């Protein structure tokens, strides 16, 4: 009989029933069981069908008395919380993957932007002497235009699609910021996101199967 009361106390503690209430219920139960025992009555005559399952008996009694404190997880469906967590982790992984791909050393090479300079218009009224001043002026003009494009592209904040020379080219900032390795940050986000999604999905399946088993039993 004492074992039954002890099991009930453990269940009340697990359910966070206030100690004063749990003490009162345990004392009443122990006194009733003791009296029944002294009269030769079985525990089932006191407890009814609850005699075979102390945890359910204790939980049912506490719930009916309204002494189980509400919890956040009880107010929000656990499944909804898990789905929200999976969505957040998926977004994290996607951001990480984007950073890893776009901030890789090849993609961020500055040559990509510098090659966008359009061909300088050739003057029509110059003759192409081998060492003439017109050729020198043309070369200077080409260099100036290329430099101007490079400066313009370098001033764009963050990744951007740039239209030039009849095509669209992806322009990326430098992968190595001051003190921050974007590639490393992306890798971390990707790993954390993928691992979190996998663990969340596994937990979701495990809790679903457990709920089905509980319902069957």
């Amino acid at each position, binding site marked *: 009989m004492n074992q039954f009361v002890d099991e009930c106390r453990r269940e009340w503690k697990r359910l966070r029933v206030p100690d004063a209430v749990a003490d*009162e*219920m345990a*004392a*009443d*139960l122990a*006194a*009733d069981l*003791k*009296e*029944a025992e002294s009269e030769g009555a*079985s525990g*089932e*005559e*006191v*407890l*009814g*069908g*609850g*005699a075979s399952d102390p945890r359910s*008996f204790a939980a*049912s*009694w*506490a*719930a*009916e*008395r*309204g002494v189980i404190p509400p919890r956040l997880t009880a107010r929000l469906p656990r499944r909804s919380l898990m789905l929200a967590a999976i969505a957040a982790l998926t977004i994290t992984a996607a951001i990480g993957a984007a950073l890893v791909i776009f901030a890789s050393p090849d993609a961020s090479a500055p040559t990509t932007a510098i090659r966008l300079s359009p061909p300088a218009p050739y003057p029509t009224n110059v003759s192409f002497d081998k060492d003439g001043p017109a050729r020198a002026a043309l070369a200077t003009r080409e260099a100036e235009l290329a430099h101007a494009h490079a400066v313009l592209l370098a001033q764009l904040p963050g990744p951007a699609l740039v239209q030039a020379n009849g095509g669209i080219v992806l322009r990326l900032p430098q992968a190595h910021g001051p003190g921050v390795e974007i590639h490393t940050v992306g890798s971390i986000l990707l790993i954390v996101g993928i691992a979190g999604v996998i663990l969340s999905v596994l937990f979701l399946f495990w809790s679903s199967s457990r709920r089905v088993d509980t319902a069957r039993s």
Partner: protein
Amino acid sequence: MQRMASSEGRRSQLLRGALDLCLLAVVVEGPAYGYEMTKRLRARGLSIVGEGSIYPLLGRLEREGLVDTYRAPSNGGPPRKYYRASRKGQRALAAGVSEWRAARDAVDAVLGLVEAEVQP
């Protein structure tokens, strides 16, 4: 065997719907603690062996204000929690008994005919 199990299940369901009224009726007679109520029910032929426990029901009655409680020493034992019907509980008992009788009469009106045909 299956017929017996079905009969027990029906008895459980019927008792489940009326056990709270029975507890209220018992404490209207006079204050009682948990096991004392069980003994009063048993003295009238109502055993809860194999049925739901009275303690969760008492908890619900207390939460809904249908019973008042107080602690008092029992006969030679430790102080016990006594239950007695509140005014609200007395009104709920009266309403519940009316509902029970109406339901019982309606069921009797149907099942009484069946009994007359089975027993020539």
